[in-house]
């Protein structure tokens, strides 16, 4: 088998809350697992077990206190735990896609531009990017009358679908999904399942968190239970 696209090894994360008397929270301890290209691994475990924190560390959004997270793509290996900020930025530009739970964008920019921008960042021509953005938004059932508007006033589900369209607009060898289906109805959940399957078939390594069992069963090749990590460490 090829070397994995994501290798998490002995990773730990704690938060020290200085404003609350220096209280320390151990959110992740000794996490170790790997994700290969073409498979979808789902992080399992109850709320608060550190699933989101693991995704955020892989994306470079949270700092890593111990261990290593090696990402392999485009012929390079990078340990995100020790990478320079510029290297992390470069990985985000070409290697890692990330769909967060909430859409966070600049005010005033239309839904279509948000999605097309992600596609353009991937190297697509302006016109191609707009066409692809339109077909993704249509596929995710975002009404056409909303495309030209900024998403600030959209419903939670609509915002989330714009967020998903943006995350899937660019094609990256590693894709992190943090509860992308949380506020979607059955019809749109099915679209997301389709999108995930297409990416898997293209060889993308996918790591996700899904609370919805239907979606999880439909896409997961393996489930990694994060509650077992701390136990192994003990």
């Amino acid at each position, binding site marked *: 088998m090829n070397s994995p696209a994501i290798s998490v090894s002995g990773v730990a994360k704690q*938060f*020290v*809350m*200085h*404003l609350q008397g220096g209280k320390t929270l151990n959110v992740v301890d000794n996490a170790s697992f790997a994700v290969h290209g073409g498979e979808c691994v789902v992080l399992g475990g109850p709320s608060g077990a550190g699933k989101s924190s693991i995704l*955020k560390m892989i994306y*470079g*959004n*949270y*700092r890593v206190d111990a261990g290593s997270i090696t990402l392999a793509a485009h012929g*390079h290996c990078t340990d995100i735990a020790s990478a*320079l*900020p*510029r*290297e*992390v*930025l*470069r990985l985000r530009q070409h290697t890692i896609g990330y769909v967060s739970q909430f859409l966070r964008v*600049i*005010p*005033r*920019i239309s839904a279509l531009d948000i999605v097309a921008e992600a596609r353009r960042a991937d190297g697509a021509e302006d016109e191609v990017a707009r066409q692809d953005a339109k077909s993704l938004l249509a596929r995710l059932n975002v009404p056409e009358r909303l495309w030209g508007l900024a998403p600030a006033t959209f419903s939670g589900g609509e915002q989330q679908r714009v967020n998903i369209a943006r995350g899937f607009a660019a094609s990256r060898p590693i894709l992190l999904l943090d509860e992308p289906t949380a506020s979607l109805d059955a019809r749109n959940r099915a679209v997301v399942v389709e999108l995930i399957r297409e990416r898997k078939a293209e060889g993308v390594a996918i790591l996700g968190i899904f609370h919805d069992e239907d979606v999880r069963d439909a896409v997961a090749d393996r489930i990694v239970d994060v509650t077992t990590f701390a136990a192994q460490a003990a």
Partner: protein
Amino acid sequence: MVAETPLLSVAGLTRYYGARVGCENVGFDLYEGEVLAVVGESGSGKSTLLSVLSTQLEPTGGSVQYRMRDGKMRDVFALGEAERRLLLRTDWGFVHQDASHGLRMSVSAGGNVGERLMAVGWRHYGNIRTEAGDWLKRVEIALDRMDDKPRQFSGGMRQRLQIARNLVTRPRLVFMDEPTGGLDVSVQARLLDLIRGLVADLGLAVVIVTHDLAVARLLSHRIMVMKGGTVIETGLTDQVLDDPREPYTQLLVSSVLQV
């Protein structure tokens, strides 16, 4: 894999005002296309740092190296007066919080932009006017306001004009001091949007000083948190804002009002 030399390389930069610390032992590298936000409260030393970086103040110690157009790294404080002035007029830009400090208020909008072109050797009136007009359009100022003086402009328009004046010579490095400070929020959003687009299109390196963490999040790739003249925390912008380590950074982040 990331091996090219930085555009700006700062080491041990220190400025005292007598016995008082302005900024102390600041160091960082900045590359083309990177936006670095310097955040902190008033008195944290961020404005002093910007003044020293842009050579408006002499440092007490440390160095600021800049990669000139010929590819050579030079200490900006070792440049001759003429060389430094040329650098400031062509390869660098400075956007002041108060646009009246960065504009000539008694000269027309077109003149404010054209003047920078003349300073780098443009002589043909028609070309200068055309280029100035293009830049006014880029910053969303209507051409029929080209011959008006900035005095007659709103705060947001003045700020956009100041940006056009700075960018017309295609600088590679731009310093910004609270560029959206003192503007209405709606005007602020439009300006942020504009700055973000221009920075990305032109591949500018930017050092932006702001006390507004939302501005830092929207515009910058990296962030430096300053307190009492020193840098206490640094990293990717979203990393520092979402996972702040230092007590002071945690306090800053938790003090932002959520809308």
